Protein backbone atom coordinates (compact mmCIF):
# COMPACT_ATOMS: atom_id res chain seq x y z
CA UNK A 1 0.00 0.00 0.00
CA UNK A 2 1.28 3.42 -0.88
CA UNK A 3 2.12 5.69 2.05
CA UNK A 4 -0.41 8.39 2.76
CA UNK A 5 0.63 11.85 1.65
CA UNK A 6 0.00 14.22 4.52
CA UNK A 7 -0.02 17.99 4.72
CA UNK A 8 0.67 19.35 8.21
CA UNK A 9 -0.65 22.86 8.78
CA UNK A 10 0.28 24.70 11.96
CA UNK A 11 1.51 28.21 12.66
CA UNK A 12 3.47 27.01 15.68
CA UNK A 13 6.92 25.97 14.40
CA UNK A 14 7.54 23.57 17.30
CA UNK A 15 4.33 21.59 16.79
CA UNK A 16 4.81 21.67 13.04
CA UNK A 17 8.29 20.23 13.14
CA UNK A 18 7.42 17.68 15.81
CA UNK A 19 4.46 16.42 13.81
CA UNK A 20 6.46 16.37 10.64
CA UNK A 21 9.32 14.40 12.22
CA UNK A 22 7.06 11.85 13.88
CA UNK A 23 5.08 11.26 10.70
CA UNK A 24 8.19 10.96 8.53
CA UNK A 25 9.60 8.45 11.00
CA UNK A 26 6.40 6.44 10.67
CA UNK A 27 6.99 6.35 6.88
CA UNK A 28 4.33 8.82 5.89
CA UNK A 29 5.02 11.29 3.13
CA UNK A 30 4.87 14.72 4.71
CA UNK A 31 4.77 18.36 3.67
CA UNK A 32 4.17 21.35 5.89
CA UNK A 33 2.49 24.72 5.68
CA UNK A 34 3.02 27.60 8.09
CA UNK A 35 -0.49 28.95 7.86
CA UNK A 36 -3.87 28.53 6.25
CA UNK A 37 -3.08 30.72 3.26
CA UNK A 38 -0.03 28.69 2.33
CA UNK A 39 -1.97 25.46 2.92
CA UNK A 40 -4.76 26.51 0.57
CA UNK A 41 -2.19 27.30 -2.10
CA UNK A 42 -0.52 23.91 -1.68
CA UNK A 43 -3.82 22.03 -1.67
CA UNK A 44 -4.87 23.64 -4.91
CA UNK A 45 -1.75 22.47 -6.74
CA UNK A 46 -1.07 19.06 -5.16
CA UNK A 47 -3.20 16.20 -3.97
CA UNK A 48 -2.93 15.19 -0.33
CA UNK A 49 -4.54 12.09 1.14
CA UNK A 50 -4.76 13.73 4.54
CA UNK A 51 -4.58 17.31 5.73
CA UNK A 52 -3.74 17.61 9.40
CA UNK A 53 -4.48 21.17 10.38
CA UNK A 54 -4.58 23.33 13.44
CA UNK A 55 -7.96 24.92 13.95
CA UNK A 56 -6.89 28.40 15.11
CA UNK A 57 -4.40 30.13 12.84
CA UNK A 58 -3.66 33.77 12.06
CA UNK A 59 -3.72 35.28 8.60
CA UNK A 60 -7.34 35.03 7.50
CA UNK A 61 -7.59 31.32 6.78
CA UNK A 62 -8.15 29.11 9.80
CA UNK A 63 -8.51 25.33 10.04
CA UNK A 64 -12.12 25.45 8.85
CA UNK A 65 -11.00 27.47 5.84
CA UNK A 66 -8.34 24.85 5.07
CA UNK A 67 -10.98 22.11 5.48
CA UNK A 68 -13.36 23.83 3.08
CA UNK A 69 -10.68 24.43 0.52
CA UNK A 70 -9.45 20.82 0.74
CA UNK A 71 -12.95 19.43 0.29
CA UNK A 72 -13.68 21.78 -2.54
CA UNK A 73 -10.51 20.74 -4.26
CA UNK A 74 -10.81 17.00 -3.89
CA UNK A 75 -13.43 15.06 -1.97
CA UNK A 76 -10.95 12.24 -1.49
CA UNK A 77 -8.78 14.40 0.75
CA UNK A 78 -9.50 13.66 4.40
CA UNK A 79 -9.06 16.42 6.94
CA UNK A 80 -8.17 15.96 10.60
CA UNK A 81 -8.49 19.05 12.78
CA UNK A 82 -6.25 19.76 15.75
CA UNK A 83 -8.11 21.69 18.41
CA UNK A 84 -7.29 23.25 21.72
CA UNK A 85 -8.30 21.25 24.75
CA UNK A 86 -11.95 21.76 25.61
CA UNK A 87 -13.06 23.23 22.29
CA UNK A 88 -15.32 20.37 21.30
CA UNK A 89 -17.92 22.71 19.78
CA UNK A 90 -15.41 23.80 17.16
CA UNK A 91 -14.52 20.19 16.50
CA UNK A 92 -18.15 19.28 15.96
CA UNK A 93 -18.59 22.20 13.58
CA UNK A 94 -15.60 20.90 11.65
CA UNK A 95 -16.95 17.35 11.56
CA UNK A 96 -20.24 18.68 10.23
CA UNK A 97 -18.36 20.40 7.47
CA UNK A 98 -16.78 17.14 6.44
CA UNK A 99 -13.70 16.66 8.62
CA UNK A 100 -13.07 12.99 9.15
CA UNK A 101 -11.78 13.36 12.69
CA UNK A 102 -10.23 15.70 15.24
CA UNK A 103 -7.46 15.57 17.80
CA UNK A 104 -7.05 17.55 20.98
CA UNK A 105 -3.91 19.29 22.05
CA UNK A 106 -1.56 18.20 23.42
CA UNK A 107 -1.34 15.65 20.63
CA UNK A 108 -1.19 12.06 21.69
CA UNK A 109 0.83 10.46 18.92
CA UNK A 110 -0.46 6.94 19.50
CA UNK A 111 -3.91 8.34 18.98
CA UNK A 112 -2.82 10.21 15.86
CA UNK A 113 -1.33 7.07 14.33
CA UNK A 114 -4.47 5.10 15.12
CA UNK A 115 -6.55 7.70 13.31
CA UNK A 116 -4.23 7.66 10.33
CA UNK A 117 -4.35 3.88 10.19
CA UNK A 118 -8.11 4.04 10.15
CA UNK A 119 -8.05 6.55 7.33
CA UNK A 120 -5.62 4.35 5.44
CA UNK A 121 -7.90 1.32 5.90
CA UNK A 122 -10.91 3.29 4.80
CA UNK A 123 -9.11 4.50 1.70
CA UNK A 124 -8.01 0.97 0.96
CA UNK A 125 -11.58 -0.31 1.22
CA UNK A 126 -12.83 2.50 -0.97
CA UNK A 127 -10.20 1.77 -3.55
CA UNK A 128 -11.21 -1.89 -3.56
CA UNK A 129 -14.84 -0.93 -3.97
CA UNK A 130 -13.98 1.46 -6.78
CA UNK A 131 -11.79 -1.12 -8.53
CA UNK A 132 -14.62 -3.63 -8.34
CA UNK A 133 -17.08 -1.13 -9.65
CA UNK A 134 -14.81 -0.21 -12.50
CA UNK A 135 -14.33 -3.88 -13.36
CA UNK A 136 -18.08 -4.27 -13.27
CA UNK A 137 -18.51 -1.30 -15.55
CA UNK A 138 -16.08 -2.71 -18.08
CA UNK A 139 -17.90 -6.05 -18.01
CA UNK A 140 -21.24 -4.31 -18.26
CA UNK A 141 -20.06 -2.22 -21.17
CA UNK A 142 -18.67 -5.12 -23.18
CA UNK A 143 -21.62 -7.37 -22.50
CA UNK A 144 -23.90 -4.45 -23.28
CA UNK A 145 -22.28 -4.01 -26.68
CA UNK A 146 -22.62 -7.73 -27.40
CA UNK A 147 -26.24 -7.82 -26.33
CA UNK A 148 -27.10 -4.70 -28.32
CA UNK A 149 -25.43 -6.09 -31.45
CA UNK A 150 -27.38 -9.30 -31.03
CA UNK A 151 -30.56 -7.34 -30.46
CA UNK A 152 -30.07 -5.45 -33.72
CA UNK A 153 -29.15 -8.62 -35.61
CA UNK A 154 -32.20 -10.47 -34.34
CA UNK A 155 -34.45 -7.55 -35.27
CA UNK A 156 -32.96 -7.41 -38.77
CA UNK A 157 -33.31 -11.17 -39.26
CA UNK A 158 -36.87 -11.04 -38.04
CA UNK A 159 -37.78 -8.36 -40.55
CA UNK A 160 -36.14 -10.34 -43.37
CA UNK A 161 -37.99 -13.43 -42.29
CA UNK A 162 -41.19 -11.44 -42.34
CA UNK A 163 -40.51 -10.38 -45.93
CA UNK A 164 -39.70 -13.96 -46.99
CA UNK A 165 -42.92 -15.11 -45.39
CA UNK A 166 -44.84 -12.46 -47.32
CA UNK A 167 -43.27 -13.48 -50.64
CA UNK A 168 -43.79 -17.18 -50.06
CA UNK A 169 -47.47 -16.64 -49.44
CA UNK A 170 -48.02 -14.61 -52.60
CA UNK A 171 -50.49 -16.34 -54.88
CA UNK A 172 -49.71 -14.19 -57.94
CA UNK A 173 -46.29 -15.78 -58.37
CA UNK A 174 -45.27 -19.27 -59.42
CA UNK A 175 -43.50 -21.46 -56.88
CA UNK A 176 -40.22 -20.89 -58.69
CA UNK A 177 -40.65 -17.09 -58.75
CA UNK A 178 -41.48 -17.10 -55.07
CA UNK A 179 -38.31 -19.00 -54.23
CA UNK A 180 -36.13 -16.74 -56.37
CA UNK A 181 -37.63 -13.61 -54.81
CA UNK A 182 -37.36 -15.06 -51.32
CA UNK A 183 -33.69 -15.82 -51.77
CA UNK A 184 -33.11 -12.20 -52.80
CA UNK A 185 -34.29 -11.00 -49.41
Amino acid sequence: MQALKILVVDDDPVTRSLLSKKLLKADYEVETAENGVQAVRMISSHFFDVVLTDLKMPGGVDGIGVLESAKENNLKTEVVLITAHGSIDNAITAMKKGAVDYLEKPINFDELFLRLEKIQNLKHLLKNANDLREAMEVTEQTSGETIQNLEMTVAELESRLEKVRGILSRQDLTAEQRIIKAIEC
Partner: protein
Amino acid sequence: MVLNATANNPSGLGSPSLKQPLPIGSIRKNQQIKPDEVQLLSKYIYAISGIHIEATKAYLLETRLGRLVETLGCSSYGEFYHRVKSDSSKLLEKKVIDAITTNETLFFRDANPFELLRYKIIPEVIDSRASEALNKPIRIWSAACSTGQEVFSIAIVLKELLGPSKNYNIQLLGTDLSDAAIKQASYGAYNKFEIERGLPKNQLQRYFVSAGGTWKIKDDIRSMATFRKFNLMHPFAAIGKFDIIFCRNVAIYFTLDDRKKLFSKIADALEPNGFLIIGSTESLTGVCPRFIPKRHLKSIFYQLR
Protein backbone atom coordinates in the same frame (compact mmCIF):
# COMPACT_ATOMS: atom_id res chain seq x y z
CA MET B 1 -13.40 13.11 24.60
CA VAL B 2 -12.49 10.51 22.07
CA LEU B 3 -14.82 10.37 19.15
CA ASN B 4 -14.06 6.92 17.94
CA ALA B 5 -14.64 5.37 21.31
CA THR B 6 -14.86 1.67 20.72
CA ALA B 7 -17.51 1.32 23.36
CA ASN B 8 -18.68 -2.19 23.00
CA ASN B 9 -20.53 -2.79 26.15
CA PRO B 10 -23.77 -4.49 25.25
CA SER B 11 -24.99 -4.43 28.82
CA GLY B 12 -25.72 -0.78 28.27
CA LEU B 13 -27.88 -1.56 25.27
CA GLY B 14 -30.38 -3.48 27.30
CA SER B 15 -30.84 -5.97 24.51
CA PRO B 16 -31.35 -9.48 25.79
CA SER B 17 -30.47 -10.95 22.43
CA LEU B 18 -26.88 -9.74 22.66
CA LYS B 19 -25.56 -12.14 25.23
CA GLN B 20 -21.87 -11.91 24.56
CA PRO B 21 -19.80 -8.80 24.09
CA LEU B 22 -18.66 -8.78 20.50
CA PRO B 23 -14.98 -8.78 19.73
CA ILE B 24 -14.19 -5.45 18.13
CA GLY B 25 -14.52 -5.52 14.37
CA SER B 26 -16.29 -8.84 14.20
CA ILE B 27 -19.68 -9.40 12.71
CA ARG B 28 -22.22 -11.38 14.61
CA LYS B 29 -22.85 -14.69 12.98
CA ASN B 30 -25.98 -14.38 10.93
CA GLN B 31 -28.89 -16.61 11.44
CA GLN B 32 -29.07 -19.11 8.66
CA ILE B 33 -32.14 -19.13 6.56
CA LYS B 34 -33.85 -22.51 6.15
CA PRO B 35 -35.26 -23.76 2.83
CA ASP B 36 -38.90 -23.43 3.90
CA GLU B 37 -38.19 -19.90 5.08
CA VAL B 38 -36.60 -19.10 1.72
CA GLN B 39 -39.79 -20.21 0.05
CA LEU B 40 -42.00 -18.26 2.42
CA LEU B 41 -40.02 -15.03 2.15
CA SER B 42 -39.43 -15.24 -1.61
CA LYS B 43 -43.15 -15.62 -2.13
CA TYR B 44 -43.86 -12.70 0.15
CA ILE B 45 -41.26 -10.46 -1.50
CA TYR B 46 -42.61 -11.37 -4.90
CA ALA B 47 -46.11 -10.41 -3.78
CA ILE B 48 -45.12 -6.99 -2.45
CA SER B 49 -42.51 -6.04 -5.05
CA GLY B 50 -42.53 -8.34 -8.07
CA ILE B 51 -38.89 -9.07 -7.36
CA HIS B 52 -38.19 -12.71 -8.07
CA ILE B 53 -35.57 -14.36 -5.89
CA GLU B 54 -34.59 -17.80 -7.10
CA ALA B 55 -34.02 -20.51 -4.52
CA THR B 56 -30.36 -20.60 -5.60
CA LYS B 57 -30.01 -16.97 -4.57
CA ALA B 58 -31.25 -17.49 -1.03
CA TYR B 59 -28.08 -15.79 0.18
CA LEU B 60 -29.58 -12.54 -1.08
CA LEU B 61 -32.27 -12.84 1.56
CA GLU B 62 -29.61 -13.23 4.23
CA THR B 63 -27.41 -10.40 3.06
CA ARG B 64 -30.26 -7.98 2.48
CA LEU B 65 -32.61 -8.88 5.34
CA GLY B 66 -30.14 -10.15 7.94
CA ARG B 67 -29.65 -6.80 9.59
CA LEU B 68 -33.39 -6.17 9.81
CA VAL B 69 -33.98 -9.64 11.26
CA GLU B 70 -31.39 -8.97 13.95
CA THR B 71 -32.47 -5.45 14.81
CA LEU B 72 -35.99 -6.75 15.33
CA GLY B 73 -34.55 -9.41 17.61
CA CYS B 74 -36.12 -12.25 15.66
CA SER B 75 -34.69 -15.67 16.37
CA SER B 76 -35.40 -16.99 12.90
CA TYR B 77 -36.42 -15.86 9.44
CA GLY B 78 -39.72 -17.63 10.02
CA GLU B 79 -40.41 -15.50 13.05
CA PHE B 80 -39.36 -12.44 11.05
CA TYR B 81 -41.83 -13.33 8.31
CA HIS B 82 -44.69 -13.56 10.79
CA ARG B 83 -43.70 -10.30 12.45
CA VAL B 84 -43.73 -8.51 9.10
CA LYS B 85 -46.98 -10.10 7.96
CA SER B 86 -48.82 -9.26 11.16
CA ASP B 87 -47.69 -5.62 11.18
CA SER B 88 -50.86 -3.81 10.19
CA SER B 89 -49.08 -0.47 9.95
CA LYS B 90 -47.12 -1.87 6.96
CA LEU B 91 -44.04 -0.17 8.33
CA LEU B 92 -42.10 -3.41 8.30
CA GLU B 93 -43.25 -4.14 4.77
CA LYS B 94 -41.72 -0.83 3.71
CA LYS B 95 -38.51 -1.71 5.48
CA VAL B 96 -38.38 -5.05 3.69
CA ILE B 97 -38.84 -3.30 0.36
CA ASP B 98 -36.13 -0.77 1.18
CA ALA B 99 -33.77 -3.56 2.16
CA ILE B 100 -34.45 -5.84 -0.75
CA THR B 101 -34.37 -3.30 -3.57
CA THR B 102 -31.06 -2.52 -5.18
CA ASN B 103 -30.16 1.11 -5.17
CA GLU B 104 -27.09 0.84 -7.31
CA THR B 105 -27.29 4.03 -9.29
CA LEU B 106 -25.01 6.81 -10.37
CA PHE B 107 -25.24 10.21 -11.89
CA PHE B 108 -24.98 9.65 -15.63
CA ARG B 109 -24.69 5.90 -15.09
CA ASP B 110 -23.51 4.76 -18.53
CA ALA B 111 -22.98 7.95 -20.54
CA ASN B 112 -24.59 6.64 -23.74
CA PRO B 113 -28.29 7.06 -22.88
CA PHE B 114 -27.70 10.65 -21.87
CA GLU B 115 -25.83 11.44 -25.07
CA LEU B 116 -28.70 9.80 -26.90
CA LEU B 117 -31.15 11.97 -25.01
CA ARG B 118 -29.19 15.14 -25.68
CA TYR B 119 -28.39 14.72 -29.36
CA LYS B 120 -31.20 12.59 -30.70
CA ILE B 121 -34.29 12.13 -28.57
CA ILE B 122 -34.97 15.57 -27.13
CA PRO B 123 -34.37 17.38 -30.45
CA GLU B 124 -36.68 14.93 -32.20
CA VAL B 125 -39.42 15.18 -29.61
CA ILE B 126 -39.22 18.96 -29.71
CA ASP B 127 -39.35 18.97 -33.51
CA SER B 128 -42.42 16.77 -33.53
CA ARG B 129 -44.02 19.04 -30.94
CA ALA B 130 -43.48 22.06 -33.16
CA SER B 131 -46.08 20.77 -35.55
CA GLU B 132 -48.51 19.82 -32.82
CA ALA B 133 -50.16 21.75 -30.08
CA LEU B 134 -47.24 23.55 -28.47
CA ASN B 135 -48.59 23.54 -25.00
CA LYS B 136 -48.89 19.80 -24.83
CA PRO B 137 -46.24 18.87 -22.28
CA ILE B 138 -43.28 16.68 -23.11
CA ARG B 139 -43.50 13.92 -20.54
CA ILE B 140 -40.50 11.92 -19.38
CA TRP B 141 -40.65 9.02 -16.93
CA SER B 142 -37.86 7.32 -15.03
CA ALA B 143 -39.69 4.14 -14.08
CA ALA B 144 -37.30 2.91 -11.40
CA CYS B 145 -35.56 6.08 -10.36
CA SER B 146 -34.03 4.78 -7.13
CA THR B 147 -32.51 7.70 -5.21
CA GLY B 148 -33.00 10.15 -8.06
CA GLN B 149 -29.64 10.24 -9.83
CA GLU B 150 -31.08 9.24 -13.20
CA VAL B 151 -33.85 11.84 -12.97
CA PHE B 152 -31.47 14.64 -12.05
CA SER B 153 -29.06 13.56 -14.79
CA ILE B 154 -31.95 13.87 -17.25
CA ALA B 155 -32.89 17.24 -15.76
CA ILE B 156 -29.31 18.48 -16.12
CA VAL B 157 -29.27 17.41 -19.78
CA LEU B 158 -32.58 19.24 -20.36
CA LYS B 159 -31.31 22.34 -18.61
CA GLU B 160 -28.08 22.40 -20.60
CA LEU B 161 -29.85 21.73 -23.85
CA LEU B 162 -32.83 24.00 -23.51
CA GLY B 163 -31.52 26.67 -21.20
CA PRO B 164 -33.62 28.43 -18.63
CA SER B 165 -36.35 29.31 -21.11
CA LYS B 166 -39.81 28.37 -20.08
CA ASN B 167 -40.86 27.84 -23.68
CA TYR B 168 -40.97 24.13 -23.21
CA ASN B 169 -43.49 22.48 -21.03
CA ILE B 170 -41.66 19.47 -19.65
CA GLN B 171 -42.87 17.05 -17.02
CA LEU B 172 -40.24 14.81 -15.50
CA LEU B 173 -41.50 12.01 -13.28
CA GLY B 174 -39.43 9.62 -11.19
CA THR B 175 -41.01 6.61 -9.56
CA ASP B 176 -39.66 3.82 -7.42
CA LEU B 177 -40.98 1.06 -5.24
CA SER B 178 -38.86 2.00 -2.25
CA ASP B 179 -40.12 4.70 0.10
CA ALA B 180 -36.61 5.35 1.35
CA ALA B 181 -35.32 5.83 -2.19
CA ILE B 182 -38.16 8.21 -3.10
CA LYS B 183 -37.60 10.14 0.09
CA GLN B 184 -33.94 10.66 -0.71
CA ALA B 185 -34.71 11.51 -4.34
CA SER B 186 -37.27 14.11 -3.23
CA TYR B 187 -34.82 15.64 -0.84
CA GLY B 188 -32.14 15.55 -3.51
CA ALA B 189 -29.15 15.30 -1.17
CA TYR B 190 -26.22 12.97 -1.68
CA ASN B 191 -23.16 12.04 0.32
CA LYS B 192 -19.65 12.22 -1.02
CA PHE B 193 -19.58 8.59 -2.13
CA GLU B 194 -22.74 9.06 -4.15
CA ILE B 195 -21.48 12.27 -5.66
CA GLU B 196 -17.84 11.42 -6.23
CA ARG B 197 -18.46 9.09 -9.12
CA GLY B 198 -20.11 9.84 -12.39
CA LEU B 199 -20.48 13.54 -11.84
CA PRO B 200 -17.79 15.81 -13.30
CA LYS B 201 -16.57 18.50 -10.93
CA ASN B 202 -17.90 21.39 -13.01
CA GLN B 203 -21.39 19.91 -12.99
CA LEU B 204 -21.15 19.25 -9.28
CA GLN B 205 -20.32 22.89 -8.68
CA ARG B 206 -22.93 24.17 -11.10
CA TYR B 207 -25.90 22.09 -10.00
CA PHE B 208 -25.33 21.30 -6.34
CA VAL B 209 -24.89 23.24 -3.15
CA SER B 210 -22.63 21.84 -0.49
CA ALA B 211 -24.31 21.57 2.88
CA GLY B 212 -22.39 20.03 5.73
CA GLY B 213 -20.68 17.14 4.02
CA THR B 214 -23.59 16.47 1.67
CA TRP B 215 -24.46 17.93 -1.69
CA LYS B 216 -27.96 19.04 -2.41
CA ILE B 217 -29.32 19.49 -5.90
CA LYS B 218 -30.15 23.12 -6.62
CA ASP B 219 -33.78 24.17 -6.52
CA ASP B 220 -34.03 25.01 -10.22
CA ILE B 221 -33.07 21.42 -11.13
CA ARG B 222 -35.03 19.87 -8.29
CA SER B 223 -38.18 21.74 -9.29
CA MET B 224 -38.08 20.19 -12.76
CA ALA B 225 -38.92 16.77 -11.34
CA THR B 226 -41.70 15.06 -9.43
CA PHE B 227 -41.16 11.89 -7.45
CA ARG B 228 -43.60 9.34 -6.22
CA LYS B 229 -43.81 5.77 -5.08
CA PHE B 230 -45.04 3.37 -7.71
CA ASN B 231 -45.09 -0.40 -8.08
CA LEU B 232 -44.40 -1.48 -11.66
CA MET B 233 -46.46 -4.61 -11.05
CA HIS B 234 -49.58 -2.51 -10.68
CA PRO B 235 -51.75 -1.16 -13.55
CA PHE B 236 -50.39 1.96 -15.26
CA ALA B 237 -53.77 3.55 -15.97
CA ALA B 238 -53.33 6.54 -13.67
CA ILE B 239 -49.87 7.44 -14.84
CA GLY B 240 -50.71 8.69 -18.33
CA LYS B 241 -48.71 8.67 -21.57
CA PHE B 242 -45.07 9.53 -22.02
CA ASP B 243 -42.80 10.70 -24.81
CA ILE B 244 -39.73 9.20 -23.22
CA ILE B 245 -39.49 6.32 -20.76
CA PHE B 246 -36.35 5.20 -18.98
CA CYS B 247 -36.72 1.71 -17.56
CA ARG B 248 -33.18 0.64 -16.88
CA ASN B 249 -31.91 -2.28 -14.86
CA VAL B 250 -35.09 -3.06 -13.00
CA ALA B 251 -36.78 -5.70 -15.16
CA ILE B 252 -33.74 -7.90 -14.61
CA TYR B 253 -35.16 -8.69 -11.18
CA PHE B 254 -38.45 -9.92 -12.64
CA THR B 255 -39.49 -13.26 -14.10
CA LEU B 256 -39.76 -13.47 -17.88
CA ASP B 257 -43.51 -13.55 -17.56
CA ASP B 258 -43.56 -10.37 -15.48
CA ARG B 259 -41.09 -8.72 -17.84
CA LYS B 260 -43.48 -9.41 -20.71
CA LYS B 261 -46.35 -7.85 -18.78
CA LEU B 262 -44.24 -4.87 -17.75
CA PHE B 263 -43.03 -3.97 -21.24
CA SER B 264 -46.49 -4.48 -22.67
CA LYS B 265 -47.80 -1.93 -20.15
CA ILE B 266 -44.89 0.36 -21.01
CA ALA B 267 -45.82 0.04 -24.69
CA ASP B 268 -49.34 1.17 -23.76
CA ALA B 269 -47.93 4.12 -21.80
CA LEU B 270 -45.73 5.35 -24.64
CA GLU B 271 -46.82 7.97 -27.17
CA PRO B 272 -46.89 6.65 -30.75
CA ASN B 273 -43.48 8.11 -31.61
CA GLY B 274 -42.16 7.86 -28.08
CA PHE B 275 -38.80 6.53 -27.00
CA LEU B 276 -37.97 3.73 -24.57
CA ILE B 277 -34.52 3.30 -23.08
CA ILE B 278 -33.60 0.13 -21.20
CA GLY B 279 -30.38 -0.94 -19.49
CA SER B 280 -27.36 -1.54 -21.70
CA THR B 281 -27.27 -5.26 -20.91
CA GLU B 282 -31.02 -5.76 -21.22
CA SER B 283 -32.86 -7.08 -24.24
CA LEU B 284 -36.47 -7.07 -25.38
CA THR B 285 -36.01 -10.01 -27.74
CA GLY B 286 -38.64 -12.55 -26.76
CA VAL B 287 -40.03 -10.09 -24.22
CA CYS B 288 -42.09 -7.58 -26.15
CA PRO B 289 -42.64 -7.85 -29.92
CA ARG B 290 -44.35 -4.46 -29.98
CA PHE B 291 -41.00 -2.69 -29.77
CA ILE B 292 -38.33 -2.48 -32.41
CA PRO B 293 -34.76 -1.64 -31.49
CA LYS B 294 -33.10 1.25 -33.28
CA ARG B 295 -29.51 2.26 -33.20
CA HIS B 296 -28.10 5.73 -32.85
CA LEU B 297 -24.29 5.82 -32.69
CA LYS B 298 -23.35 3.69 -29.69
CA SER B 299 -26.82 3.47 -28.20
CA ILE B 300 -29.96 1.53 -28.75
CA PHE B 301 -33.43 2.83 -28.10
CA TYR B 302 -36.82 1.30 -28.72
CA GLN B 303 -39.88 2.55 -30.48
CA LEU B 304 -43.29 1.07 -31.12
CA ARG B 305 -43.70 -0.79 -34.38
